[in-house]
């Protein structure tokens, strides 16, 4: 009886798992880190959309935040003899031996969103990542242009201390506003990239700066903290987007909702579409042998209330953010 039950169980499992594989021109294996953040989930769904658009057969392996799972996935992609492998590495080290195997099998590897340790530079075709210093600079330039010659005190909500993204976004912003003497960051504290901390820190900023009268603009290293800060401003009786300008980075759906309500001014997009340029690079490499540059920088679009935030919200809300 137990034998039967066992076979029944494994047969059911096999049935559940069985799905027909469809033929396509190009087969790409994508070792994704996981789905730890809304952005990551959006990256996965956009990759699928881009693959369908190009009729690429995309195989996605979710590594659940574990490097060993990513290495296993890459090895099994090699065994399947895919045309290319995309890798969003969970850590920057430890890829040498498995990438060597891919190279031996003549399968090009493209890194998405994150780079790996320098020793492996010749082991991958190209890396598609955003430039977080540039993102900060775009935010800073928008603010400088918007306020003009008026004196402006900026408060800054930093990302997690020690995170390279936070440091880079700060650096880019600081460099951009350094050219404008009227702009000054008066307060800067970490909000840990979270909504709750963003709100808390903004509340303390408002108290410290005369109920918010001395604050002319808020710069947040991500949209989530800004959403929290907007709430803090509203609770203090201020009008975010009017009394106090806002600029943040990432372009998640909720910031567009705030823009539609007139409570946010600008955001810089960290595009979830890393796979699109990667597909193009691989296709060009496969067909014409064009070797892409080692680094493909994604576009950091500036999106303001003038750019139809409702449309942006609608296009992004289904992606899993």
């Amino acid at each position, binding site marked *: 009886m137990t034998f039967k*039950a066992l076979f029944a169980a494994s047969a059911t499992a096999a049935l559940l*798992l069985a*799905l027909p594989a469809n033929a396509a021109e190009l087969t790409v294996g994508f070792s994704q880190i996981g789905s730890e953040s809304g952005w990551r989930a959006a990256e996965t769904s956009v990759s699928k959309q881009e693959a369908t658009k190009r009729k690429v057969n995309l*195989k996605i392996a979710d590594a659940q935040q574990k490097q*060993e799972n990513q*290495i296993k996935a890459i090895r099994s992609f090699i*065994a399947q003899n895919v045309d290319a492998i995309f890798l969003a590495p969970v850590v920057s080290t430890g890829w040498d031996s498995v990438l060597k195997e891919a190279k031996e099998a003549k399968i090009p590897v493209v890194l998405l969103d994150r780079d790996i340790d320098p020793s492996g530079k010749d082991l991958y075709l190209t890396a598609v990542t955003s430039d977080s210093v540039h993102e900060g600079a775009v935010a800073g330039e928008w603010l400088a242009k918007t306020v003009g010659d008026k004196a402006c005190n900026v408060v800054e909500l930093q990302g997690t201390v020690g995170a390279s993204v936070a440091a880079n976004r700060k650096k880019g912003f600081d460099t951009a506003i350094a050219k404008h003497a009227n702009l000054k960051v008066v307060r800067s504290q970490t909000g840990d990239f979270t909504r709750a901390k963003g709100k808390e820190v903004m509340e303390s900023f408002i108290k410290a700066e005369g109920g918010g009268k001395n604050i002319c603009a808020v710069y947040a290293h991500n949209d989530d903290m800004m959403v929290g800060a907007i709430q803090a401003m509203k609770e203090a009786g201020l009008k975010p987007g009017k009394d106090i300008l806002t600029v943040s980075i990432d372009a998640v759906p909720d910031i567009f909702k705030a823009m539609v309500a007139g409570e946010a001014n600008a955001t810089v997009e960290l595009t979830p579409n890393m796979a699109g340029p990667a597909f193009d690079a691989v296709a060009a490499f496969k067909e014409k042998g064009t070797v892409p540059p080692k680094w493909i920088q994604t576009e950091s679009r500036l999106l303001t209330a003038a750019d139809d935030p409702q449309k942006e919200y609608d296009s992004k809300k289904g992606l899993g953010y």
Partner: protein
Amino acid sequence: MKGLPPVLITAIVLVAGFALCALQFPNIASTRVVGNLLTDNAFLGIVATGMTFVIISGGIDLSVGSVIGFTTVFVALAIERWGVPPLVAFVAILALSAAFGAAMGAIIHVFDLPPFIVTLAGMFLARGASFLLSTESVPITAPVYSTVSDFALRMPGGGRLTAIAIIMLAIVIGGVLLLRLTRFGANVYALGGGRATASLMGVAVGKMTVKIYMLSSLLAGIAGIVFSFYTSAGYSLSAVGVELDSIAAVVIGGTLLTGGQGSVIGTFLGVLIQGMIQTYINFDGTLSSWWTKIATGVLLFAFIALQQGLVALARRPAAKRAGAVS
């Protein structure tokens, strides 16, 4: 021949599963995939071998995943930052992990504490210690590492039998011999039958407990070294949850979770089954990788039910109307 039927069933599941997978993806039936299975699961196979001894003796060791994590960080720092020769670093970490296991075993025995609690504490301790050493992933650039991780016996068909796969196979074979042919192995089974009875049979329960946990931690240390070869790096977050994967492999392999019965070969097959499910999901490429956990869960349930059934069957002739409660 105790413990054989469950092992046979595990083997049948593995072969049938493999055949099903190969039917759908002919590429799976290649030496490359088999080589990958052994390489990718080398650390799991090693640590699960140790776990088999612990579980047969009626205990459990939750600290092994953390010991692997600590080992990778320790080895990486020792070689890269402190300038210790790799071999010396290996000996040091193996001594350290064996001592760690011995200490856990001693605490379990002396204070008569449940192994679950003591090794849970050990798990937090080792993981915490590895974070204390380094929160970042430390790359290992020593030449030994590239030599070992590039070494592989080529099998016909493009497969590779890597050095770490060979280490794992050697340890599995060693584990089989140790459990089957030595007094130590017999004592492990005796301990699993019941501490009091084992003690009456003349088994030095305290010494055995210390030795068993020492063995488990030592193998976890070796698994950690293998893991560091696997990634050429030390990372404090590596091998999180491996203790649970290895317990699952042991149970799927037909070892009784309450102790007294089981085999290393079964565990090895259990490791391969888990690897096979993961390979299938990677080959398919459209399924969520969490199906690995679901399939493992289904198998676990099936095997636990099966074992309970076997236990009930075994009891029937002895006591005519005995309950199936163990």
